[in-house]
């Protein structure tokens, strides 16, 4: 593709990429491959299996795939990701970014600051915040709704952690979309508005084509992160009765509490594979819609 506008050339391009690649190679690829290898052993951090780990082939995978807990955990995680990341964070994040553009600066700062604060606060503290909110005896929510004794975390564990994660993670989507919207020239929107386009039409015709790449990236990233998010454990401890035991909690129980690092590594790799499926679905969806506009080349969402 003739997009090498700056005359970089392949050699210089490599030089630009190399530092990042080296760092990634040493501190990401290497430990990741090592972890994948550990997944093929019965390795533990302590005990006899720490002294002499044995190669067990795909046993860890077989054990996970036949474990009913893994199955239910996977299903809960899919709900969690679709509900809190795809439907929740991505949509709300975009809405906040869109609406915030038209707000007066102090209001905008307040909104953005609050959204960001919920993302920045340490996980353990966030857990206290939400327990104080949802507690069945002294909870703020019950006081507001006048529903004393409703145990939100026990009666609606999945709903609770989904809403929690929307609250927790919307900031990233908001930031990404705000930045992306900055790249949509205001003049374009102005033209569309003067031509009498409704908000929906503006979004569909002017905004979406320009930020499609960002939408895809955002969905990929927040799904991946949500798939690996451990914080809900602090709210529900995976319970009651495992009804909110999402996969990261499952891995934690195996790897840290149970000490079975080999088995934990295997499940981590399974999570990776499931994420790959998610990524392929997003790609297909967005690419299908990407067909009409000019820059349709696979992978190269070229300059507009």
């Amino acid at each position, binding site marked *: 593709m003739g997009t090498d506008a700056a005359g970089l050339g*392949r050699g210089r391009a*490599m030089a630009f990429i*190399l530092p990042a*690649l*080296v*760092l990634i*190679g*040493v501190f990401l690829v290497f430990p990741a491959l090592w972890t994948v290898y550990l997944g093929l052993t019965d390795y*533990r*951090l*302590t*005990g*006899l*299996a*720490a*002294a002499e780990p044995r190669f067990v082939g795909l046993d860890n995978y077989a054990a996970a795939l036949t474990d009913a807990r893994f199955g239910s955990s996977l299903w809960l995680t899919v709900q969690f990701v679709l509900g809190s990341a795809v439907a929740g964070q991505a949509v709300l994040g975009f809405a906040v970014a869109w609406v915030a553009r038209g707000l007066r600066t102090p209001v905008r700062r307040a909104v953005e600051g609050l959204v960001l604060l919920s993302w920045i606060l340490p996980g353990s503290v966030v*857990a206290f915040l939400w*327990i104080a909110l949802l507690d*069945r005896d002294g909870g703020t929510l019950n006081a507001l709704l006048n529903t004393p004794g409703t*145990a939100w*975390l*026990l009666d609606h564990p999945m709903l609770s952690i989904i809403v929690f994660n929307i609250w927790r993670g919307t900031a990233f989507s908001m930031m990404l979309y705000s930045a992306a919207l900055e790249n949509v020239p205001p003049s374009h929107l102005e033209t569309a508005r003067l031509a009498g386009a409704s908000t929906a039409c503006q979004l569909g015709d002017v905004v979406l084509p320009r930020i499609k790449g960002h939408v895809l990236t955002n969905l990929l990233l927040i799904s991946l992160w949500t798939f690996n998010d451990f914080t809900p*454990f*602090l*709210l*529900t*401890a*995976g*319970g*009651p*009765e495992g009804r909110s035991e999402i996969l990261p909690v499952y891995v934690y*129980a195996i790897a*840290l*509490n*149970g*000490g079975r690092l080999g088995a934990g590594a295997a499940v981590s790799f399974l999570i990776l594979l499931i994420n790959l499926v998610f990524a392929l679905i997003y790609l297909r969806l967005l690419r299908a819609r990407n067909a009409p506009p000019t820059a349709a080349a696979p992978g190269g969402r070229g300059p507009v």
Partner: protein
Amino acid sequence: MRLPRRPATTLGALVTALTLAVTAAGCGGESGGGGAITLTITQNAISGGKNAKGADWIKNWVIPRFEAAKRAAGQNVRVRFQPNGVEDEVYKTKIALDLKSGRGADVIDIDGIWIGELAQAGYLRPLRELAGAAVDTWEGWKQIPPAVQGLGIFEGRKYALPVGTDGRVLYYNKELFARAGLAAQWQPGSWREVIDAARALKRLPGVTPLQINAGTAMGEATTMQGVLPLLAGTGTEIYSGGKWTGGTGALRDVLGFYREVYSGGLGDPRIQQEAQGRDKSFLEFAEGEIGILAEGDYFWRSVVDPVVGVNPMKNRDRVVGYALIPAARPGAGLRGQDFVSMSGGSARVLNPRSRYPALAWELLSFMHSAAAVEAELGGEARVTARTDVNDKVLGRDPMLSFVAEKVLPVTAYRPPLAVYPEVSAALQEATAAVVSGRSPEEAAAAYHHRLTELVGASAITPA
């Protein structure tokens, strides 16, 4: 258009270069400056935070005195303290990683129950192998009761010096007892009498009669304060003679007790399922909303203590009573006892990779001398490993002398094996199942199945 070969080699070269640069830049490990020998102590304690007293004791008492003693003997020894302040599991992970890679402090404070799994992994070695005959002749051994010495023993060999121990009891609220028409001095003799008292308390509005930890959210507190003392009350240990206890009659009895409590409205099933359930049970007891609570002496010292407690009770000494945990029936407990308990405690080990093992032992034994142990308490009462110190300090606190005199003689310890945490988790799941309404038989069978997966059928006591 393929990727040219060259970048691959360049990449390799760059990795090497980066590695070298980083190695050179790193702050090169131990500094053996000035001919001084440096020893390091680590503990899950930190000034201004978790276990601050322990950290301050090491910094302000142990280190200056040990260094001074060595200087007087003509040796230039420097001691450093490496504080930590994290959850126990995370601390264990760090210690294991350190020992695995041949690093770590010379003297390490750990939970006694980790000794087995660390030794099995080859991370620890017996004290005698490391420090020689000086270990056998140490004056402190005769001050430490055999049961407490057991905290530092694995497969018959001594790996550690125990720091102290604890015990579990039934706490009860005397005001609530009075309102329910129960005696202010209470000592149940059987599970039945516990249930009867709880039934009487049930009549009080807004009061949870009995809190006996259950479920997975409470974690080890369920096993230590619930399942294991109850199991001991049926005369059974979770692990003995190389075999684990399966879903036998004894375990079914324990789960039957749980069912009586939680399906009979004597306990609050929901608090067992909440992520912060244990913290909440402390808060509720302190606010007079729980009648009877099974907990360790930690609860007395650090939770409801009128001054330093997390949930201080100003009238603790007047309102909070404590009783021994009874066996199912008189004489039905472990070793034919009428009463039972469970204990744990921390212990200090030597790092096998210590460059100065003999000196490290000197430091370790110095930290366990009578004067040091007394200083460690800093005026607080606590059950230490040493009888001579206990005799001196426990008089300050009736509850802790109760633990030392009445509880420790009947107590038991958990097996220090790597698989134990997972067995414990399976026991917690069994109680969770019963609390949410399944039958004890069903829960016991599920536990048995899980246990078989964990340890194999041959390592389970035949029913």
